[in-house]
Every structure is written in C-alpha cells, then in structure tokens.
C-alpha cells in the first residue's frame, strides 16, 4: 500500500503511461505462460488500486486468450497486524462473488514493500476458501521486505530508501497513469 501525506514532493518518474501499460501487458503474458493458459485462474485485487490493476490484467488476458476471468476485491483491514498501532480502522467491503476453492488466485497489488499487507491478504483469502494456488502480481517492488514473501510477477523492480514513498497513479482514481517516487519536502 502506498502512504500519502500532503508534504511529499515528486522526486522522479518511474513509469510513464506507456511503460505502465507495457508492464501490465507483460505480466498478463507471464500469467498465461506460467499457468499454461487461463484455466481456473481468478484475480483478487487489494483495495483500492490493486483492484483496478486486477481489472486491467483481466481485460488484457481476455484480449490475448479469450476467456474473461473473474475479478474480486479484497480489503485486508480486519487482518492487519498493526491495528493496535493505528487509529480506528477504516473498513471497505470485500467483494469476491465467486468461489476461490481449487482455483489459482492471482493476488494483485500496486506496491510491494514490507510484505505485511500480503501476509494479511493471504490470511484473508484462505478464510474464504482453499485455493489450489495463490500467486502474487505486483506493479512495483520497492524492497525492504520484513516477511519471507516474494512476488511471482513484477512490473518494475525499484530500489528505494525507506524515507521515500512510491505513488502509483491510475486514471480511474488519480486522473493519470504514472508511477512516481516521492520524498518528504525539506523542512
């Protein structure tokens, strides 16, 4: 998950609109290649931007391979390991209107950082059923893992420092398709 604070300034552009689209196209091909097609593949995106990315991947796979794959939305708030360290939780709906039992679930998120969000997502998913396999697709892997979690599909590997943050901007939410690195403004 990206964190936003008003006192951040843009430091560098990591992906422009075309590069972001190419990265998703490549991931779509890799998903098909790795799974020998799209049979029994379902997408679950993490709220909010992971859901949008999952929908785009599903569209791309439909364009390449034909079948239209189901896309669900997962909110991991109830599974966070740091609920006690934050304020009152903001819960959004989990909407997975299909069974994930015995399916290959491709979990999609925008940025992979410590891995704690993905740990929570794995618990949340398994509470909903027992998938045959869970794979992880990430647009930007920025490093600094705190848990043994490794993505299967990566749009862009991006070494960052901890004080920086990575903002994935998508047209549906932010009016543009771009990934940038932000850093706190000097005081």
């Amino acid at each position, binding site marked *: 998950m990206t964190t936003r604070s008003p006192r951040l300034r843009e430091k560098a552009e990591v992906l422009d609109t075309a590069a972001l689209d190419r990265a998703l196209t490549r991931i779509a091909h890799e998903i098909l290649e790795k799974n020998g097609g799209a049979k029994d593949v379902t997408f679950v995106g993490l709220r909010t931007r992971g859901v949008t990315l999952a929908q785009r991947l599903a569209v791309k796979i439909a364009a390449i391979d034909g079948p239209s794959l189901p896309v669900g939305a997962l*909110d991991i*708030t*109830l*599974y966070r390991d740091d*609920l*006690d*360290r*934050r*304020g*009152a*939780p*903001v*819960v*959004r*709906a*989990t*909407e997975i209107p299909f069974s994930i039992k015995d399916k290959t679930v491709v979990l999609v998120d925008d940025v992979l950082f410590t891995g704690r969000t993905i740990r929570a997502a794995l*618990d*949340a998913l398994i*509470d*909903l*059923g027992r998938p045959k396999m869970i794979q992880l697709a990430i647009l930007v892997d920025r490093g600094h893992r705190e848990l043994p979690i490794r993505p299967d599909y990566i749009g862009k590997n991006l070494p960052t420092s901890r004080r920086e943050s990575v903002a994935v901007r998508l047209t549906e939410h932010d009016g543009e398709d771009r990934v940038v690195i932000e850093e706190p403004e000097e005081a």
Partner: protein
Amino acid sequence: MGWTRKDLLTIRELEPAEILTLVDTAASLQEIAGREIKKVPALRGKTVVNLFYENSTRTRTSFEIAGKWLSADVINFSASASSAAKGESFVDTARNIAAMSPDVVVVRHSSSGAPALLARELTCAIVNAGDGAHEHPTQALLDLLTIREKKGHFEGLSVAIVGDIAHSRVARSNIHGMRKLGMTVTVAGPPTLIPPYAQELGCKVSYRLEDAIRDVDVIMMLRLQQERMHAGLIPSLREYSRYWGLTLDRLAAHARPDVLIMHPGPVNRGVELSPEVADGPYSVILDQVAKGVAVRMAVLLLLAGGRSGEAQ
C-alpha cells in the same frame, strides 16, 4: 471520516459524517455473515462485556455474535444473575468489571443516562445498548443501514414512526439520525403517547394513522409496551389496535406501493401489526435483525479496533 470517539452513547451527539462512518463500516462487514467460516481476527485478544440490566434477547445476542465474529472474547453479565440482586450499586458493579480490564462494556439499563455515567467513570469504551426511554443508537443505525440498502440513499426520504413515541428510545435515536441525514419524519400515535418535544426535534405530528402513512417511503411501527395500558395512557389494546394497527387494507388504501415496513421487534402480532403485514412483501423486519449484527460489529470494531481514541 475517521472515528475518534471513545464511546457510543447517543445518536444525538454524532455528526452526520460519523453516522455515515458507522453505517458504511457496517455495510462493509455484512459480507462476513455470508461466509462459510464467520470469523475475522480484528479483535483478537479484546474483551467485550455485555452488561444487561434489562431483558433483551435480540440486542444481547446480536452484540455477542458480533463480538465473536470479530474474534473478541464476549462475556455476558445479566443483572438478575449478578450482584445487583445482592444489592451492589450500578457503579460499583461496573468498577468491578472494569478492574478485569475489558476493552468494551455494552450496557443496557432502565435508567436514561446510565451508559453516560459509566462512560465518565470507566476508561474502557462504553456502548449504549438502550437506556430507559432515552436512546438506542445501534437500533437506529441498523434501521438506517436497512433503509439505505433498500432505498439507495437517505436525503429526501420521508418516514412515519407510529406508536408509543413518548416511551421509545428507538424512536428518539431514529429521529435524531434521520433528521441529521436529511430525512423527513412524521410521528404518529394517540396524543397520550406523543411527547411534547416531537416538534422541537423537527418532526411533523399526526394523530391519524391514515394521514401519517400516506406517501411516505418508510413506515416504522413501534411495539406497544403493554404496561402503558395499565398506566392509563390508552383505553384498551383492542381500541389501540383498531385505530393504530397496520393492516393490509390500510396499507393498500393509503400507503405507497414501494413502502418499507419496519419494526424494531418484538412484534405484538395483531396489535400494532397484522400478521399478513409483518410477514408480507413490504416487511423488512428480518433484514433489520440481520443488519443488527453488522452494525454491532462496526461499533465494536471502531471503538476497540484501533489504538484507543485516535483516527487513522
């Protein structure tokens, strides 16, 4: 809007945005009821005490299920089986419970203001589960969630609340909530059961059922508390039922075809609601009960789910 309060005592004190935060959170949590394994770890290690000084099946059970689905430990403490029967004062009992470090105490009491008293005395979160004729905030929240789900929005809707308004904490909480969210409220009932402050709260008042239910989006029937009859406020149950009972004929003659019929339960069948209406297609009474669990999960989660008293 983030939630920042320590307690949930009344709807009256809430901002519209806070009411919507509660309703939205409850809407998100509803999905858990449809799962095969109805449990999420959000309140693992937290303790919820149900402190009930008045009988209640629905509300207590609903808080208990809500706490358990969120993985909290839930302890039920009913006054009849407790030290209240041995003469311990309310505040002493509460302090004793507080000494066991619960995270949330859900309290129902026949005296208005009892939850507010506890909220001042104890550092844990207090939820008002109904105090006297004052407020019953979680009931109003589940009513609001039901209305939004059926009608899609709040602004501009009209509601008739019918029956014993004067003694109803459900009516009072709902009136505050509905007015804050831009709804029009008409209260209706025999003059002895309409409180003098109804107009101050921004309600229209009607003394005829047929007028009250005309063209409204929602009809909320209240339970006639039968002890009112003994207090001389109504002549007889039969007369009440005759003038104020909602029947299919009356509905067909005066109400809109898409009206929602709500009732906080327990229903006196044949008194305020005829069985055909209670079980009929307009009735959302069981939806209300189902939403009750989601609303109570939302309340427990917002009060106990984060670091106490801070917004995210």
